[in-house]
């Protein structure tokens, strides 16, 4: 696993402030690309599902933020959904949950 200074800083903030920092605009663009392209590899570029289920707001309506956060960070054992914690901080995952709730912006 690669060292990620953003992870260290965000982790530090979590400990210090108890809240995750919002990713900066450069990282937000990277995360949106990750969401569209890499999450999209299984869930569809338009998030309507593929080998993995749909990630559209209506499909996630009955899931809590905490459940979505846990799924992103730790995956779902027994399925093809892997844990993204090695590549995402908690703050970044939280921001991704917000994006999922908003739905695709184009």
């Amino acid at each position, binding site marked *: 696993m690669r060292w990620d200074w953003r992870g260290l800083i965000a982790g530090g903030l979590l400990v210090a402030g108890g809240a995750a920092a919002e990713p900066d605009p450069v990282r937000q663009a990277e995360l949106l690309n990750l969401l569209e392209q890499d999450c999209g590899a299984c869930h569809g*570029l338009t998030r309507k*599902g*593929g*080998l993995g289920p749909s990630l559209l707001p209506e499909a996630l309506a009955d899931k809590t933020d905490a459940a979505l956060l846990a799924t992103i960070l730790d995956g779902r054992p027994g399925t093809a959904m892997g844990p993204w914690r090695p590549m995402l901080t908690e703050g970044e995952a939280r921001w991704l949950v917000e994006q999922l709730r908003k739905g695709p912006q184009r």
Partner: protein
Amino acid sequence: MIRLLGLLFVLGPLAAQAGACLVRGTGDLGVVIERSAGSLLVVDRTARRQLFRVSGLGDVSHASVVYSPDERYAFVFGRDGGLTKVDLLCGAVVKRIVQAGNSVGGAISQDGRLVAVSNYEPGGVRVFDAATLGPVADLPAIGADGRRSKVVGLVDAPGDRFVYSLFDAGEIRIADFTEGGKPKIQIIRNVGRQPYDALITPDGRYYIAGLFGEDGLALVDLWHPERGARRILDGYGRGEKKLPVYKMPHLEGWAVAGDQAFLPAVGHHEVLVVDMNTWREKARIAVAGQPVFVEARPDGRQIWVNFAIPDNGKVQVIDAETLRVIKTLEPGRAILHMEFAPRGEAVWLSARDDNRVAVYDTESLKVLATLEAIKPSGIFFTWRAHRIGL
């Protein structure tokens, strides 16, 4: 003179877009999927340049392509259930239908008359007339438990057959179209948990489905389908910690060199080497990440491997003789696919997050050319028209 040639170079594609079609052979053409833009580029792999951009293909994330026997038409299978027939010489869509809600791939029959699409939603296979895209057959994938299953690993096989796997039901099915629109379907059950993709050997005899739900692969001898599926490389990762898989490996690019086959391990950063005489594991090669495509250069001397995120900026080249990694390339950000020239002197790599395609010389391992493309993914050359299973 040079100026005049330059002018022609500029005007050529424009004139074609205005409706003029090219008069030339198609044997060195291909397409590059632009997954976010819903478009593809028709490319000339000799000149290493774009001829046309064809738009309006819908959601082409995970799109794949097969070719008509005359290498003029590309059939594009989109994620959104779209099936689009593209004329390479005119750079135009001939016909487009949306035949399901969510699709993953397709195949063309041995005689080139039928095009089949594997669907996630509704789970099954739909078969169309390659000339008109009119419907020929609908094959719902209802497993032994009575539930509909996603279909993966659809390939053509000799004898006008299509072979495919049911991801949720753990089955392999063979649809025989010898008698036209009413296929005979043979069902092989209990092949293993979650077959995620499959391939057929270049001679069309063996169909092999990779299993996501367990360490192993299911093998069917299409000369003797009555014998059912046999498990090979059973428990190849036993005792090892399974690593996360951030992208499903693909088995379509069957990598055979001599009598050994190279396959991606699932959940292990390894390429598996199988002895094709015994179907037993011969070796394992440690690589830089979770392999996605493992492809042999057409002469079988080199094996090229790309990887799932976060190692998708690398490509490794393995010497098929010593089974050692001889080079780790960093061709760009998010390398999604690799396609060889049919005689293997060059390979094209798509670098999604750099918006370009890089062409490598496979001997010097140096870059020969780059082409601009919008979020490129799959690259498909027309030589596929004459290969079983592609």
